[in-house]
């Protein structure tokens, strides 16, 4: 099959606009991805054809709303190869998914003296919840170091596990700064052998590569729909046995079976964790985004991005003084490419390329400890998705040459 980027772009209405008279070159999908028409139609469809509150009513309209909402849950379960849809919990985003695990599983299972292992390349959302949990429970938080190349030091990981007392290992499946795809299946196998539970931050990986939670051996997976072309919603997948043993995270309507004046019984999975009226249309839009990606095929998405990143890494290195953060081997990394140009602040880079219609991110990308590790005050990041192609890389590189021309003396 052939990949037709131009035809794909046609399906993303926002990309038709111009910025400063230039074609919009959107290279910030790692922060949030643009939405295909199919997702916009799904959202519109709920509000114009099938909107009512879910799970609560007998009438036909509510039944249709519930059918679409639960249909989305099934699509997401299939997308990540979850054993059952009841293990998918709708949340606001990956951050909330990770907080749910930290508050519910963490408070019940992490105690004084326990150890939590994360890595130096984690996004703050897979770092701060564990840092705070450790502080509250009297546990310790330790970090698997990152090599200069941007890979995890797996020997150090084995050493940290071997000390004993590790109850939880939390790791990203794709770094939002380095692009690195850590060997999570191996990490999970070692963690389980040491008796630890494995939380995987899938915010970056799930939109960009095939993910099979069973093959990974994960216990929890956090997903943000908005990074895969869906609206502002997310999901937590967890193993049924763990979810069933966990106390609810939020209390209220829909998450209870029965309530008396002094006590309540919790609803079954996944509703135990979905208190209150959920984001109904957004869930349906999430399902539509997953359908859109499944239509392209996640193997094809990954292959397209791998080839594009290979080209980007090669072209970016022609810019004088530009240094790439993270691995240079496109087979072990995803589509987020962070870089630093000697003597030029990333904010200036982002401002100047914006004048050429190019959207890139500049800053710490919610990964301050990682920037500290690389001794950088900030970095610039270009990130790619299905609607990007070599022409976007060429516009970026030309814009970066202009940055150098303007600012270097």
């Amino acid at each position, binding site marked *: 099959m052939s990949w037709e980027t131009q035809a794909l772009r046609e399906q993303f209405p926002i990309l038709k606009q111009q910025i400063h008279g230039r074609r919009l070159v959107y290279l910030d999908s790692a922060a949030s991805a643009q939405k295909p028409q199919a997702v916009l139609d799904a959202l519109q469809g709920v509000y114009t054809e099938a909107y009512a509150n879910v799970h609560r009513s007998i009438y036909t309209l509510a039944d249709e709303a519930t059918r679409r909402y639960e249909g989305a849950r099934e699509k997401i379960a299939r997308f990540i190869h979850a054993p059952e849809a009841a293990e998918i919990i709708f949340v606001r985003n990956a951050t909330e998914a990770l907080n749910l695990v930290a508050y519910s599983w963490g408070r019940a299972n992490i105690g004084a003296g326990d150890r939590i292992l994360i890595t130096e390349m984690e996004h703050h959302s897979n770092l701060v919840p564990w840092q705070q949990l450790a502080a509250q429970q009297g546990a310790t938080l330790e970090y698997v170091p990152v090599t200069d190349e941007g890979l995890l030091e797996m020997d150090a990981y084995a050493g940290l596990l071997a000390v004993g007392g590790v109850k939880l290992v939390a790791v990203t499946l794709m770094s939002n700064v380095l692009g690195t795809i850590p060997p999570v299946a191996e990490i999970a196998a070692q963690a389980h052998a040491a008796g630890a539970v494995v939380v995987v931050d899938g915010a970056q990986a799930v939109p960009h590569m095939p993910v099979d939670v069973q093959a990974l051996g994960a216990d929890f997976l956090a997903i943000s729909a908005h990074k895969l072309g869906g609206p502002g919603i997310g999901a937590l997948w967890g193993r049924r046995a763990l979810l069933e043993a966990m106390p609810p995270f939020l209390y209220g309507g829909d998450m209870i079976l029965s309530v008396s004046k002094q006590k309540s019984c919790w609803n079954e999975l996944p509703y135990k964790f979905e208190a209150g009226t959920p984001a109904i249309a957004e869930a349906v839009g999430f399902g539509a985004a997953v359908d859109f990606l499944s239509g392209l095929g996640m193997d094809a998405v990954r292959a397209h991005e791998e080839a594009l990143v290979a080209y980007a890494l090669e072209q970016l290195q022609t810019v004088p003084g530009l240094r790439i953060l993270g691995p240079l081997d496109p087979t072990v990394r995803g589509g987020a490419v962070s870089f630093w140009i000697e003597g030029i*602040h990333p*904010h200036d880079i*982002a*401002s*100047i390329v914006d004048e050429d219609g190019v959207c890139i991110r500049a800053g*710490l990308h919610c990964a301050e400890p990682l920037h500290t590790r690389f001794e950088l*005050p*900030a970095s610039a990041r270009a990130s790619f998705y299905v609607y990007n192609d070599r022409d976007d890389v060429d516009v970026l590189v030309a814009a970066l040459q202009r940055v150098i021309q*303007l600012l270097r003396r």
Partner: protein
Amino acid sequence: MSELYREVLLDHYHNPRNYGVVEPADVDVRMDNPTCGDKIHVTAQLDDAGRVAEVRFEGHGCVVSMAAASLLTEEAIGKTVAEIGEMDLHTIEELIGGVRLSMGRVKCATLALKALQKGLKDVAQG
């Protein structure tokens, strides 16, 4: 040519005015912008009438933060505490050539001004 990165901004970035430290200083403030790593150190001396006699800055950061700091030091000399207290983002935008800054650059542009205003307030409060 760039809309924002005009000659005045680039000139002050490459050749900052009043760069360094005033000693002894009535005003001595360090401030940073943790989201982007900009750091600034502003020192100043006041005259008997309470006007800024000398002001210097040092630090590192983006073009906007450093050039705005340089332009501000030129503008601040001879001004009273009250006059500097009235300066705001608009003042900075005028100084850098009448450019309207995007929301993401506001903190960069006003870092030196905030530092100077804080330092003068500290002096006033003794």
